């Protein structure tokens, strides 16, 4: 019997250790797994490396994790935020490391880790400071830089709905990095606003097959996702 559901965010993040590398889904606040991050703050793990497109907005979620001093290094494309000074303050004080990666290269490196591709060539960033010191190669008369897969110990992501196998669908642009991160972490933890019966998700429209997901945590039941006529008895 496969049942990946965990009782609550605390149970789902309990075993994350100091020094872990953690992927955090979301583009700005869209798709940010806020409740899982809150549980991680409570849990106390520190010295974390966090891979996420941004470095927190406002004062909650990733910004709160950084403010609590738990993040030793950020790997991201856009750590600047109009509404948050948390990362900037720690960065200027030299208390947090930063590996800046072009957004598409960040996405592709995460995908590569999930797909078993250890490295790939890309034209992105050639001739800029972000490609300096990296191996280069020429293909079809175009200079490219070699980029490496980027995996993690844990991925924290947010889905719109899940089933007990861990199949996931997302909501609009909250999808962003989550399907990639799910493939690239040893342990993928998805918070979701609905758990539906097995067979309720259209097999043609599942975005993240359950094989990539280890833990599912229901945060809030959004009635529009529930279809009692299709729910599997006992597994809704």
């Amino acid at each position, binding site marked *: 019997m496969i049942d990946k559901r965990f009782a609550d965010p605390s149970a789902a993040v309990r075993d994350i250790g100091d020094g872990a590398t953690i992927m955090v889904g979301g*583009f*700005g*606040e*869209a*798709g940010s797994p806020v409740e899982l991050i809150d549980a991680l703050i409570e849990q106390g793990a520190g010295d974390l490396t966090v891979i996420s*497109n941004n470095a927190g*907005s406002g004062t909650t979620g990733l910004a709160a994790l950084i403010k609590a001093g738990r993040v030793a290094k950020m790997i991201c*494309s*856009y*750590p*600047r935020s109009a509404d948050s000074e948390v*990362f*900037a303050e720690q*960065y*200027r004080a030299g208390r947090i490391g*930063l590996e*800046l*990666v*072009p*957004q*598409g*290269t*960040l*996405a*592709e490196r*995460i*995908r590569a880790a999930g797909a078993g591709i250890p490295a790939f060539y*890309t*034209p*992105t*960033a*050639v*001739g*800029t*400071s*972000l490609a300096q010191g990296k191996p280069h190669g020429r293909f079809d008369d175009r200079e490219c830089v070699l980029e490496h897969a980027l995996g993690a110990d844990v991925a924290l992501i947010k889905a719109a709905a899940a089933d007990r196998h861990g199949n996931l669908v*997302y*909501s*609009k*642009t*909250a*999808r*962003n*990095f*989550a*399907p*990639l991160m799910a493939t690239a972490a040893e342990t993928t933890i998805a918070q979701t606003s609905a758990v539906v019966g097995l067979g309720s998700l259209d097999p043609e429209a599942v*975005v993240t097959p359950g094989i990539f997901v280890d833990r599912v945590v229901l945060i809030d039941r959004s009635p529009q996702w529930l279809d009692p006529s299709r729910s599997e008895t006992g597994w809704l």
Partner: protein
Amino acid sequence: MTRTTPQALDRREIARWVARDIPDGAYVNLGIGMPETIAECIAEDKEVILHTENGLLGMGPPPPPGEEDTELINAGKQPVTAAPGASFFHHADSFAMIRGGHLDICVLGALEVAANGDLANWSTGAARAVPAVGGAMDLVSGVKAVYVMTRHCTRAGEPKLVNECRYPLTGRGVVDRVYTDLAVIDITPQGLAVRELAPGVTLAEVAGLTAAPLHDQRSTHRESHPDGNSAPSE
């Protein structure tokens, strides 16, 4: 926006200039900031598909107040809508569109553009600044035509079109055309080539505000006010 000269266009007028040149059926990515204005200037008889790199093709206009959805935003993290025929996808698929050369045009802002097409638009290199690159380097290396939309000079009056960029580069030799408040300028193998001037602006004025040689490649039939061609007046 401080005008470079009394005749300089305002942001919306530059946007109309760009919008006029986007062909029907084009797939376009509009950068954060000034280029976002272009969307609302596209003529209604043209169907242009907007891409936003955070995972939406077929971006529609902002929603009416009160109907914003925090999970339906653009790359600038502003609420948008999904037009009929839209699709959502993850970031790797989104940047496959960009890097794979499937987008026809992107329009970006700039700190500096060099006469050889080098672009600097992501970092001033200032010591205390938090560096942030986003998707700019991916866009300039992947999209078929890279346009820049910018004021001709900085707020301090310094030319943004230069012989060589001083700021950290976003890409080398990547810019195809620049739309400013004074002129439309193509990047050519010979350097900067003026295609059009804003009404009442002279070539000498533009040259005086440009820190690289300018070639005059205006053809009479293209020289016109941004409102004068296919874009409808408002």
